[in-house]
């Protein structure tokens, strides 16, 4: 019942000061929007940059030290190592098409569509569908959907070209298929010629050492350029975003403080009267803090919405795709809005508590 009347008087008070509440909420909105956009874009960039860089290759390449290959089990063992995000095996060999030797690259069927390659045609679907490098299209006069016969050591297999790959590397002059298909057409059942590892940035040396100690014949190469570029770029972006966010939060806090300060000053007489009517410091601060919480909630929600839209717009412009913002971000945005509003209201409200009703009510 008491709560009901608190809300009644609170609503009346806020309605009277809609303008000030709107200004303070707008300041919080700005800070929260920027924070949301920054976090969203940072997370998005990390994701997108990762997948863009993935297109250039993994950041660790494991190949046999001497002539030879790895058993397929080595792949599972590497994938389980700490800080390894992804690992995939490759079958590298050759086969013959129309008595002409053609390179074969066998990769994990599940990863084939997530390599970030540019494909003309469609991704392979059935057991007999494969991709061909764009250079082979002209050399072998291939067409999308065309059937070809590959032959190795007297074994013939019929395959269908579902599309062509253009990557600017060895893939452009090879037949690309699943590991199982590659084993069949190259006659290397159960063996891998290379393992590509994607490790966490900053942990590549550790991962390399772990692979070397686990596999006797492994030569581990870290693709430093890729890894360093990724780490350095992300670090700089994050630092810049953090600094800008801090500056805006500070500016927003000053704006809320001055708005609340003006609010308190404007309501000096009201505070004096409330004190004369028997309101304790807690009673009075409750009204102001509730107003701060309201400002925080409005600013937090509006800021999240604005920040989300901004992050999507930035991502669309930079990566031509939208980003997913992690679930805890809306809650964090709301909390941050409330914290900024309450923190900024602390000093003005503390000042209000010190008003002497005897002096105020005399009109001095």
């Amino acid at each position, binding site marked *: 019942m*008491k709560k009901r*009347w608190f809300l009644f008087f609170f609503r009346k008070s806020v309605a009277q000061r809609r303008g000030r509440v709107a200004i303070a909420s707008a300041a919080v909105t700005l800070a929260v929007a920027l924070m949301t956009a920054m976090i969203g874009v940072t997370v998005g960039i990390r994701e997108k940059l990762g997948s863009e860089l993935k297109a250039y290759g993994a950041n660790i390449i494991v190949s046999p030290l001497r002539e030879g290959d790895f058993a397929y089990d080595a792949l599972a063992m590497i994938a389980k190592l700490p800080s390894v995000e992804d690992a995939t095996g490759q079958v590298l060999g050759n086969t013959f098409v129309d008595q002409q030797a053609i390179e074969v690259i066998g990769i994990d069927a599940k990863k084939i569509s997530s390599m970030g390659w540019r494909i003309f045609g469609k991704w392979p679907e059935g057991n007999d569908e494969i991709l061909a490098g764009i250079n082979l299209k002209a050399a072998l006069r291939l067409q999308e959907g065309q059937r070809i016969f590959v032959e190795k050591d007297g074994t013939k297999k019929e395959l269908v070209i579902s599309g062509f790959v253009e990557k600017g590397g060895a893939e452009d002059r090879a037949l690309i298929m699943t590991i199982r298909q590659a084993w069949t057409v190259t006659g290397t059942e159960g063996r891998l010629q290379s393992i590509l590892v994607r490790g966490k940035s900053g942990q590549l040396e550790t991962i390399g050492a772990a692979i070397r100690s686990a596999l006797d014949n492994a030569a581990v190469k870290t693709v430093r350029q890729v890894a360093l570029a990724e780490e350095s770029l992300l670090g700089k972006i994050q630092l810049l975003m953090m600094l800008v966010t801090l500056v805006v939060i500070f500016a927003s806090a000053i704006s809320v403080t001055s708005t609340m300060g003006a609010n308190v000053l404007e309501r000096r007489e009201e505070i004096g009267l409330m004190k*004369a009517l028997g309101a304790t410091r807690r009673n009075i601060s409750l009204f102001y803090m509730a107003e701060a919480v309201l400002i925080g909630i409005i600013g937090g929600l509006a800021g999240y919405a604005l920040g989300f839209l901004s992050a999507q717009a930035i991502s669309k412009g930079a990566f031509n795709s939208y980003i997913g913002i992690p679930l805890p971000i809306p809650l964090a945005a709301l909390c941050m809005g409330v914290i900024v509003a309450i923190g900024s209201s602390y000093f003005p409200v503390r000042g209000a508590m010190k008003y002497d009703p005897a002096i105020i009510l005399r009109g001095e």
Partner: protein
Amino acid sequence: MAFIELKGIIKEYKTTHALRGIDVTIEKGQWLNMVGPSGSGKSTLLNIIGSLDSPTAGEVLIDGRDISRLSEDDMAVFRREKIGFIFQQSHLIPYLSAVENVMLAQYFHSMSDEKEATDALVRVGLEHRLGHRPSQLSGGEQQRVCIARALINSPQILLADEPTGNLDRENTKIILELLKKIHAEEQFTIVLVTHDPFVAQWGQRILTMEDGKIKCDEFLCRL
């Protein structure tokens, strides 16, 4: 035992002596008017009785309890339980209606009750102004809302600081008649500060102050 007992009250500000040793007792239900020139200390004494201010030295006993050394929050609780205030300026909340202004005093005391607040305004003759905001009321009507607000929680003491200071003679009379009627019905104690000799005659006792001291203490028999 006197209901209000002030013993050796001294109030000093940085460079001024507002009260220089006040000793006075006020019986329960008495209507006492304080008069004196500006700066004589009458409003300061009123604020000390009303626990809006604390004395530099001395004791303020109200119903046997010394309130001179209470904490700020304890003073607030004491005010809400025992005291009703009327000020020269009405100090009504501008965005609340007449009845809501009365209900705000109920809210800080215990619980707002619209019916009780309405009855209080009917009692001061404002049944036709319940939903009006202060800016829509005349000065006299605003002071009547203040009387309703001051008395809604049935205080034992009504403190009025120049309650008719901004009113013309006709409205002053209306307010004083109203106070007289309600005081006769409820017998609470009234301490009223005024510089108007006409108003000063409307009590049972006149305390004249000058330069922080009691100059004259005169008992009337008007009520």
